Structure formats: structure tokens, C-alpha cells
């Protein structure tokens, strides 16, 4: 055995640990999908349930919209940070990273405080005279979108910023010298060169959005149920096999999204965007 292959053995303790603590539980859970008589009854039950289908579609739709909104908001901020002076850039980086480093639970709490019936936004709007009655903002689909976009923005900003920072500024200067206006410099030089970051951020945000639980549970109303919330509910009702079948479907959706996108962007790049 060579020294190089012996070094590889150091992976074994972690591998053994993950097989027992992570892979085996997930595999056994997925095995429940097969059902007691091996006819995939739990899976059939999920597919035949109108509620489950509605929840799956709602989750997908939410993930698509949240990803698009996040992209539209993240790009300008990333672009501004990439072109700002170093002090402004550091300040804005702190603004991106402090929420990123704050737990999802606390950020959802902050939005509950802001959006509630007697929350800060309603109180402010009433005291200024713009409203006479408080608006129902909390426990709505709107609050779920706000909360999810807030949690996911840094995951979009950081990869886009990384690829914008990698662009050689001389290319922009050259395009300008050749007579390109700001719009055409952006369209033909900056946007194409920043696409790897845009794609990495898009995949990451979309995949993470599919699995949201805490934010919609705290900010949404009764009709804003995501797949993760439905799975938790089934498990609480002791319908473990049905919950497992839903989890299997969610896992397949996650993997399909990841592999589908991995044709355009490497998985290493996507995972490099997390923290």
C-alpha cells in the first residue's frame, strides 16, 4: 500500500459515523415508501391525495417566485458592492452577512414583530395617517414571501458577487473605448461573465426554498402550507409511511433540481456558496 492510499483511510471514521447517523436513517425512512405489501401504497396515497398535490404545487410555485424575486433584488446589490469603494463595500458586506449569520428562527421572529396586527409597520402607517385600520400582513402568503426572500437573499448575493469580482475590469474599459454604452456593456460583457454566479445562486436558492419549514410555519396562514410542513403534520398524526413517501418525493425533487442544473454549473460551485 502506498502512502497516498493509506492517507485515504482517515476518511473511514467519518464515513462510518455518517453511515450510522445519517445514511442508514434516511435509507430506512425511504424504504417505508415501498409499503407493507411492497405495492408502494404510501406513495400512491400521496399522489391520490388532492391536499398533498395542492401542497406540492404551492411549494414549487413559491420556490420559483421566491427564486426570481431574490435574483432581481440580489443582482443590483451585488453589482453595487462589486463596483463600490472599499469602505462602502465592507459596510454593505456586513449588511449582507449579519442577517446571513442570524438564525432563521430569529429572522422570522423579527418579521412577526414587524408585520403583526399591532406590529411596527401597522403602527407606523397608522400614526402617520396612511391607514385607519391595521392591515392583515402576518399569516399571509405575502409574509411568507417576504420572510423567505429575506432568508435566501445572501445565498444569491454571495455567488453573484464572487463572479462579478472575478471580471477583469479592463474588458469593461475596452468595450467602452470601442463605443459601447452602459446598457450594452452590461448586456454583452458584464451579464454573460457573471452568469456562473447567477446560475449557482439560482440553484442554491431554488433548492433551499423547496425545503422551507420554519419561515412559512411562523409567517404563513392556514393555506400557506409547504411540503415540509405537511410532512411534519403527517408524522405528528402517526402516519409515518405517508410522511416518508412525501419526504422521498421532496428528496427526488431536490436531487432532480440539483442534477438538472449541474449541467450548467458544477456542484462544487453551488456548495461553495453555502457559508
Amino acid at each position, binding site marked *: 500500500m502506498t502512502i*497516498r*492510499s493509506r*492517507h*485515504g*483511510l*482517515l*476518511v473511514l*471514521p467519518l*464515513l462510518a459515523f*455518517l453511515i450510522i*447517523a*445519517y445514511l442508514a*436513517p*434516511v435509507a430506512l*425512512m425511504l424504504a*417505508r415508501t415501498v409499503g407493507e405489501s411492497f405495492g408502494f401504497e404510501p406513495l400512491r396515497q400521496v399522489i391520490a391525495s388532492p391536499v398533498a398535490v395542492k401542497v406540492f404545487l404551492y411549494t414549487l410555485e413559491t420556490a420559483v417566485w421566491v427564486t426570481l424575486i431574490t435574483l432581481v433584488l440580489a443582482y*443590483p*446589490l451585488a*453589482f*453595487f458592492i*462589486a*463596483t463600490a469603494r472599499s469602505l462602502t463595500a465592507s459596510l*454593505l458586506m456586513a*449588511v449582507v452577512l*449579519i*442577517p446571513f*449569520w*442570524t*438564525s432563521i*428562527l*430569529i429572522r422570522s*421572529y*423579527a418579521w412577526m*414583530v*414587524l408585520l403583526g396586527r*399591532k406590529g411596527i409597520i401597522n403602527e*407606523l402607517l397608522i400614526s402617520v395617517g396612511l391607514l385607519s385600520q391595521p392591515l392583515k400582513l402576518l399569516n399571509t402568503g405575502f409574509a411568507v414571501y417576504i420572510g423567505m426572500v429575506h432568508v435566501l*437573499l*445572501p445565498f444569491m448575493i454571495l455567488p453573484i458577487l464572487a463572479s462579478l*469580482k*472575478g*471580471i477583469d*475590469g*479592463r474588458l*469593461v474599459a475596452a468595450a467602452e473605448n470601442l463605443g459601447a454604452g*452602459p446598457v450594452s456593456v452590461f448586456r454583452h460583457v458584464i451579464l454573460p461573465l457573471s452568469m456562473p454566479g447567477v446560475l449557482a445562486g439560482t440553484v*442554491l436558492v431554488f433548492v433551499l426554498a423547496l*425545503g422551507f*419549514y*420554519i419561515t412559512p410555519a*411562523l409567517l404563513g396562514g392556514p393555506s400557506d402550507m409547504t411540503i415540509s410542513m405537511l*410532512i411534519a403534520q403527517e408524522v405528528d398524526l402517526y402516519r*409515518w409511511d405517508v410522511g*416518508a413517501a412525501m*419526504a422521498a418525493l*421532496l*428528496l427526488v425533487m*431536490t436531487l432532480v433540481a440539483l442534477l438538472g442544473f449541474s449541467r450548467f454549473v458544477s456542484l462544487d460551485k*453551488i*456548495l461553495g456558496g453555502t457559508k
Partner: protein
Amino acid sequence: MTGYAITLSSPLARALLGIVALAVALFLIVPVLVIVPLSFSSGSFLSFPPPGFSLRWYQQLFSRSDWMDSAWLSIWIACLVALLSTVLGTAASFGLVRGKFPGQRLLVAFILSPLIIPGIIVAIAVYFFYARLQLVGSPIAIAVAHTALAVPFVVVNVSASLHGFDKRLEMAAQNLGAGAFDTFRLVILPSIRPGVIAGALFAFITSFDELIVALFIAGPSQVTLPLRMWESMRSSLEPTLAAVSTLAVVASVSLFLCASWLQRRAQAGAGRMVREGA
């Protein structure tokens, strides 16, 4: 990095971009900052602006044994997670960076997969597994489950600092007669230490903030801090929450600042050691 950053020459474009960027930046930071004044409010409701300054919510927090028990439980579990994932993750990073074996890329994807797989999937899988083994309600069982979620951060950080490590130092040590263990302890570990500590800090925070897995596998007497906050948010939204949240934000921002400072040192580390040694 090329050293030539892109610039915007049109002042109008710059102004428009600045306005949008400022709006997004405010959207990001205001919700996090708004908790801070609320936690120092003298009122018993979450009214804004607060009617006056007081420390009553902090006093209440520190005098209530349920909140303090939860805080200590979470800290204890997070320490265990940091220790376990640092040991397993550092060894594995060595194997991954130095070793060469079939299926290596697949193995890396497997180790990093908890970062991207929905939390609920891991949570119920572990719950079913522990229920069968009658491990639900054990703090150590929570720590074991959290370690699987935290270990990717150690592997990412330690691998990065190992890539930056100058192998000639290791060869020099071995030529001078150091054994494998001494080489690791005296030469490699000191120079990758920032990466290892950064990984440990990330692992600590991952466990300290984790809710979904704890929601399923914690028993009634193991209420971690995120669990206690979750329960309080679902029922009363008491202002004590603002005090806990403020402390938690301050704690995690300081830990992350340490970790990212160490990360930067880890990347610069090996090269500097060679220069200083020369």
C-alpha cells in the same frame, strides 16, 4: 481576481443602482436591528418606538430557570457537536486532500449533502431511527444528529487550509527524523489550526441554531434554546424573546467574525510560515 475591478462610468446608472442597492440593504438589515431596541423596552408589549429604556426583559430572562436551562443545554450540545465534528472532519479532510481513491468525488458530495438536503428529511429519518432504538429524548442523540449536519463546515474549512499548506515543510520534518504523529502535531496542525478552529466555530453555531431536528427528537425535558423560542413564538411573542434574540444575534455575529477572520488567516497561513521560517 485580476486586480482590475469593474467600474461604472455613467453617473446616472451609478445613482439608480445605488438607490436600488440601498433599498435591498435596508430590507436585509432593518429586521435584524429592530429587535435590539425592543429588547430594552420598558413596556410589556412590542410597541415601537419603545416607551422607555429598561433592562427588565434581560432580568426576567436570567431569572427564569426554563430559559437558562435551555441555554445551557444548547451550549452543552453545541460543544459536543463542535468536538465530535472537528475530530471526525479534520481526519476526513486529510484523507480527502492527501489520499486518492475511487469514488472520491461521490464521497465528498455525500459528506456535503446535509448542507442542501431539506432539514425535514433528515429530521424525520433520524426520528424514526431513534424511535426504534428508543433514543428519543437523549441530549447525546441530539448531538449525534447535529454532528452530521455540522461536519460539512469542518471539512470545507480544514480542506481549504490543507490545500494552502506547503508540503515541503512536512517533507523537511520527515527528513529531519520526525515520525508521522510528530509531523502532524508539530508541523501540520499549527499551520492549519485557524481552519480547524473556524470549522469548529461553524459546527458550534450550526448546532446552537438548529431547530427542525430537535423539534422531532428532543424529549419534553430536553428543550433546547431554539425549541423554547419556537414554542414561545407560537404562543405569546413575549418581549423576553427580543432579549434572547438580541443576545443570540450578538453571540453568533461575534463567533462568525472570529471564524471568518480565522478563515482568512488560514488561507494566508502556510505561505507566511514559509517566509517567516526562511
